[in-house]
């Protein structure tokens, strides 16, 4: 019986240690080839003509001049006359030409006329209080949204019965919904819903208010000793991947497509391209060795990937490189939804949180924005939550590292921090006091809070908000906590041991820069008992066994588990072949440092090469899977909690916030590679500092265009802006035995809240909305209440 469980610490040479990433040398020398870097002979350069208007209807498209230009090899009108465009930057025409210069000239020669329609791009304003719950017929999109907003099933059914539908759902549509997991009660409500006419002309950007209640919030607020109130929010931000979205597609023959695409989802792209291109998924090969950032925005082929294939087809199969330019990337290739909320919190005399009341709104573009999971982490006994989706012409939302969590975290932790201030309590003490509300991870959070407090010097440096300090530089501390799942995704791995000793691993996964390659090799090496350098790893190709998309912190768990199972099985098969030569039973053998030997013996073993020679003529190939209920234990797990603290200085004469120090304490189960795991957390802190201080998509209210579709006024933190960063993992046997858990998302959740709370602590007043730019900080300081608490402060 094979032992799949993770090896004990004494048995590990690699797992849990700090190992330099194996693709480091090709990256630092510029040899790593990204999608953007493929320059095959005969390459055509793709170019998009995009709509400059936030909302418009295409009236006419004249491509005649462009088509005639020598060097233009393919051209496609993507959205012809009559099409409605919902955001600036959406493509209208795509073309491919022999050089970038020709492509650019051709694009300029295309004349497009638009009928400009009214738009909404600014979402920061609080929606009117009296928004009525949508009353027109329910659309398919409404239903999907209600599910997204966790509207109770009874209410969905009620809406269908009362509001009806504009067109009857067909049985095949209903079957499809059932396939998505829509419960029978809703399916029958959809089937039975009356058909109603949609009321004309009542288009409001506000929609689908979700209302949820738990316990008796009214009573709790009445009985409260203190009620604190506040407004909190964060704007739309872009993913700003350094490598823009795009692909290089070529038809290697009329029936077969090779797509090199910048993607987080190598195994999942072909199926998404098959239908629009009308070819079997098996005829599409997807390849990618390196990706220049995704952060949640690169799971599909996108229209751009499909267009690159279509243009290639039109050009006789020649490779077409279609990468978004920076402007389009910033405008249209992804946005993290905004979220704003007015929150009231009730506390009793001892400082226990008793009730939560929030009225939130959000946009993620044309379909609005769902409600973040409020209140976050803390399960407040009595709650009322109302949510309004704001439909805007700001470009489509995409998952952004830990979808919805940074928003929920800021709103909740800032509101709680304000409640502590209102009570006159140290927030560390206040959070500890209420830690039981976090549920099963309460003990862990409490411990992490103590560790983080120690690392940041909370006791020495914290002061109440109202303390008077001299000078214009005010220092403050803030804290936050967060959670995430992170169970390993579905992953399959083929591991081959060749008779000459060579070992190959093939897996359709991808390395986003998180160190996936290195982790897989570490697991395989420890499982086989040979050095990492002896193993060849092949990833990034859809011809290899399917492995899930890299999102939601699921990759490390998935690939390490499938690799472990494959390697253990392959090793045991090898040992079975070698046992007779060592005059022993397979179960009595072990492989240590590349020597196959009887357990515990130090002499008389076979070298790896000698052992593999016993395999026979044919190699051993096994497939490892995750999950695999036949090969327990689980190896991966879900659910982490982390604590972060920030130490900031605020210049009250300029409103500038500087990060002095940030501390991240994180549990993560069994750490495979300490080095790349720490890098993930450092990176998350820096990304968090960036969205806390700098990032926002600035939309022009009049033209509806993004005013900063660049990297100059869409600011990213530089090397000097991040302060001292301290990362501490919760380690030890307790953590190890949980198995492997993903780490990509959790540490990026808390920085917004921790930094916002630190600024509030420093200047004595809440800056309601991120990013904490000088205009917002100075406006907050200008509030009459601010002056009262910051005497000796501003000019």
């Amino acid at each position, binding site marked *: 019986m094979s032992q799949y469980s993770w090896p004990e610490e004494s048995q590990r040479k690699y797992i849990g240690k700090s190992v330099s990433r194996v693709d480091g040398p090709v990256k630092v020398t510029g040899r790593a080839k990204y999608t953007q870097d493929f320059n095959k002979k005969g390459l055509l350069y793709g170019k998009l003509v995009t709509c400059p208007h936030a909302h418009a209807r295409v009236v006419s498209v004249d491509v005649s001049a462009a088509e005639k230009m020598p060097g233009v090899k393919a051209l496609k009108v993507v959205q012809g006359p009559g099409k409605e465009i919902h955001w600036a930057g959406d493509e209208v025409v795509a073309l491919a030409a022999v050089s970038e210069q020709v492509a650019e000239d051709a694009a300029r020669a295309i004349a497009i006329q638009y009928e400009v329609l009214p738009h909404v791009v600014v979402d920061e304003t609080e929606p009117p209080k009296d928004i009525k719950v949508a009353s027109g017929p329910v659309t398919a999109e409404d239903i999907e949204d209600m599910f997204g907003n966790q509207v109770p099933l009874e209410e969905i059914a009620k809406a269908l019965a009362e509001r009806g539908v504009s067109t009857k759902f067909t049985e095949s549509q209903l079957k499809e919904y059932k396939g998505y997991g829509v419960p029978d009660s809703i399916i029958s409500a959809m089937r039975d819903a009356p058909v109603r006419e949609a009321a004309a002309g009542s288009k409001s950007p506000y929609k689908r208010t979700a209302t949820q209640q738990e316990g008796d919030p009214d009573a709790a607020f009445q009985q409260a000793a203190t009620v604190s109130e506040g407004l909190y929010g964060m704007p739309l931000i872009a993913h700003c991947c350094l490598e823009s979205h795009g692909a290089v597609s070529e038809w290697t023959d009329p029936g077969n497509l090779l797509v090199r695409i910048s993607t987080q989802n190598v195994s999942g792209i072909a199926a998404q391209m098959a239908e629009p291109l009308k070819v079997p998924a098996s005829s599409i090969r997807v390849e990618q060795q390196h990706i220049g950032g995704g952060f949640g925005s690169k799971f599909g082929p996108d229209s751009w990937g499909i267009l690159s294939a279509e243009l290639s087809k039109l050009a006789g199969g020649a490779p077409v490189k279609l990468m978004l330019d920076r402007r389009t990337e910033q405008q249209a290739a992804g946005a993290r939804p905004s979220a704003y909320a007015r929150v009231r919190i009730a506390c009793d005399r001892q400082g226990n949180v008793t009730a939560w009341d929030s009225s939130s709104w959000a946009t993620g573009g044309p379909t609005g924005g769902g409600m973040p999971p409020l209140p976050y982490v803390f399960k407040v006994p009595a709650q009322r939550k109302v949510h309004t989706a704001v439909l805007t012409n700001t470009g489509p939302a995409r998952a952004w590292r830990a979808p919805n969590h940074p928003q929920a975290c800021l709103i909740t932790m800032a509101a709680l921090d304000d409640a502590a201030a209102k009570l006159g309590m140290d927030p560390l003490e206040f959070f500890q006091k209420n830690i039981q509300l976090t549920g099963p991870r309460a003990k862990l959070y409490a411990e992490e809070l103590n560790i983080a407090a120690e690392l940041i010097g909370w006791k020495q440096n914290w002061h109440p908000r109202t303390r008077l300090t001299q000078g214009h530089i005010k220092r403050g501390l803030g804290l936050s906590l967060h959670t995430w799942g992170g169970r390993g995704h579905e992953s399959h791995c083929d591991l081959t041991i060749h008779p000459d000793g060579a070992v190959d691993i093939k897996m359709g996964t991808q390395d986003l820069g998180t160190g996936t390659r290195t982790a897989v090799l570490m697991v395989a090496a420890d499982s086989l008992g040979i050095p990492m350098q002896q193993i060849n790893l092949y990833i990034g190709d859809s011809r290899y066994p399917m492995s899930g998309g890299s999102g939601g912190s699921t990759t490390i768990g998935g690939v390490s588990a499938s690799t472990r199972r494959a390697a253990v099985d392959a090793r045991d098969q090898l040992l079975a072949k070698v046992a007779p030569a060592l005059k022993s039973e397979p179960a009595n053998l072990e492989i240590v440092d590349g020597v196959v030997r009887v357990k515990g013996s130090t002499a008389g073993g076979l070298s790896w090469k000698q052992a593999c020679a016993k395999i026979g003529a044919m190699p051993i190939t096994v497939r490892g899977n995750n999950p695999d209920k036949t090969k327990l234990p689980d190896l991966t797990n879900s659910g982490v909690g982390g604590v972060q603290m920030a130490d900031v200085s605020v210049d009250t004469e300029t409103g500038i916030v500087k990060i002095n120090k940030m501390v991240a304490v994180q549990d993560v189960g069994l750490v495979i590679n300490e080095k790349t795991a720490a890098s993930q957390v450092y990176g998350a802190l820096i990304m968090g500092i960036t969205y806390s201080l*700098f990032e926002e998509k600035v939309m022009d209210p009049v033209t509806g265009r993004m*005013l900063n579709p660049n990297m100059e006024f869409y600011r990213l933190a530089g090397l000097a802006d991040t302060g001292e960063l301290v990362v501490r993992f919760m380690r030890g046997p307790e953590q190890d035995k949980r198995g492997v858990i993903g780490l990509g998302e959790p540490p990026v959740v808390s920085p917004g809240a921790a930094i916002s709370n630190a600024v509030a602590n420093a200047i004595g007043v809440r800056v309601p909305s991120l990013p904490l730019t000088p205009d917002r900080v100075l406006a907050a300081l200008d509030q009459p209440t601010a002056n009262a608490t910051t005497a000796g402060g501003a000019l």
Partner: protein
Amino acid sequence: MRPFEYATPRSREQAVGLLGRNWNESAVLAGGTDLLALMKDDVVAPKRLVNIKQMGNYRDVKVEGNDLRIGALVTMGDLAENPEVAKRFPALHEALWEAASPQIRNVATIGGNLCQRPRCWYFRNGMGLMPKDAGGQSLVLKGDNRYHAVLGNDGPAYFVSPSTVSPVLIAYGARVRIFGAGGPREVALEKFYRVPQSENEREFDLQPNEVVTDVLVPLADVRAGYYEVRQKEAFDWPMASCAVALRMNGNTVQEARIVLGQVAPVPWIATEAAQALAGKSVDEQSAMAAANAALAAAKSLGHNKYKITVAKAAVKRALLNAAGHKQA
């Protein structure tokens, strides 16, 4: 970028001869860091680029009479490292160090810095330097003006003058030498900048077929200071900057020049502030009073009120820097 012709003149006469009489005919290429970005964004589309980097020896920095003469082709990086500049013009040295990034400073020239175009996001997005909506109303006033002018902002121009170096040079009383079809001419840098009244005008006193050849900075006994307020630690456009040059009599200010950057369509000379300071010693209180005087006429366009506060801090800190109270 649109296609263009490219020529490399060997003299300033050739350079001027290769330049057209209208702005859309040609453009001067020196470091190119600003010009190429403008061309990529199709904000400008000159049909010919005249690369002036070989037009003669304009790469020297040397004392000539009562001036330090800086060739227009000296890079920002070389100027920042020039010991003469560091010794005689510490505020200029500092402003150069603070400007942009090493990569930019290694190619951008001082002449190009003085002639760079505004960073106004309407302008850079191709909506014009004085952008208007269909009804002829200013997009800046109706839209997002958080980075726009708080002084000299009665319109139609609301952008801010981008150079961080020009306020310092103006404070030092610098002049620029310009070469055109009619030969060389000299103009005080403060007069070089002007507020355009239409899209066809430029923000400086330069004809399309003229080139800046030298910057002349008088060797005067002044105490100078510089301060810029940036959100990022480095490589970021300031929200406000201020350069001051003080002629002292012991500890008393005899005469002050106070020039603000990033607050108006031109480098803004704060005469009132200078007057407020005359006859006083520089301390926290007098510096603050000068700052208040400098911004007394400032007004918000709706989203940029904070810039008034920020600019006051810049003035105060530049003055304190000049007086030797180093401000972080």
